[in-house]
């Protein structure tokens, strides 16, 4: 038996995923690279000054395992924390 909280969480997950997929697909068929705005503006800004280049002082997890896996793991961990506390604070008595 799926309670109301779980149903709401699942619906939200499907809606958010659909928004992401539709947005990415529309960008893809429009021939766009879908680059991050932060990096685009930063690169442009760096090009206006001499000897300025983005670097990284620490190895990124996403460089080792790739962005899809890295962000999936991060999302799962953060989602578990949010979901666990959210249910504790807001779950209705009848859903418990």
């Amino acid at each position, binding site marked *: 038996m799926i309670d109301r909280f779980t149903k709401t969480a699942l619906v939200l997950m499907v809606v958010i995923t659909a928004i992401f997929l539709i947005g990415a697909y529309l960008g893809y068929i*429009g021939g*766009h690279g879908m680059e991050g705005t932060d990096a685009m503006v930063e690169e442009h800004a760096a090009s206006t000054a001499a000897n300025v280049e983005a670097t990284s002082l620490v190895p990124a997890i996403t460089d080792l395992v790739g962005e899809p896996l890295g962000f999936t793991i991060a999302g799962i961990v953060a989602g578990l*924390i949010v979901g666990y506390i959210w249910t504790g604070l807001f779950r209705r008595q009848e859903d418990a």
Partner: protein
Amino acid sequence: MHISDGILAPEWCLVWFAIAIPFIAVGVWQIKRGTKESASYLPMLAMMGAAIFVIAVWHIPVPVTGSCSHPIGTPMSAIIVGPFPTVVLSAIALFFHVFFGHGGLTTLGANIVSMGIVGTFSGYLVYLLLMKVKSPLWFAAGMAGFVGAILTYIITALELALSLNPDSVLSHWVLYSMGFMPTQLPLAIAEFIFTAGIVQYIADRRPDLLAKKLWGGFSSD
């Protein structure tokens, strides 16, 4: 708004850290006080911290512009746990973002100022002003999210212009701001929607959990 290492001049990195540190210190003090006042405060902080971490690194595709970017989440957190504790949460989130290839260690102060301080306090101020004129809670919260998201990027543009273009700060500030806006405006609307929805939900279900003191941290009064 994640500025990478190597982009800002060292002196500007120090300036942004110097601005950020007092806010973090007050935030830590308020967190200590809040955890003593209420047993619910620490879980709320943990939840908001995890939420900011994900929201502020979650690249949402904007097909109209052919690019992607992320909301910030700090205005929502400011309304729920208070603005100063939100600065601490954003500092922690931004530190971990570095290990996901977003932002940098030397630019952490600049990123805390834009997202953690300006995004937080501008949104919280808008929220307070709208509540003062008897605006519906959802609208005040939503506008906090919208304004906080936009101003975060305007300040990021200023940080870039001040460091990289000291001879023409104003024109480059406008230029970089205009570079962010086409993608950030739709995302600011998204920030409006989820901030309004979540704050209204919490107010309906657990109004005692919303921060109430002006500029302060948690109070269950």
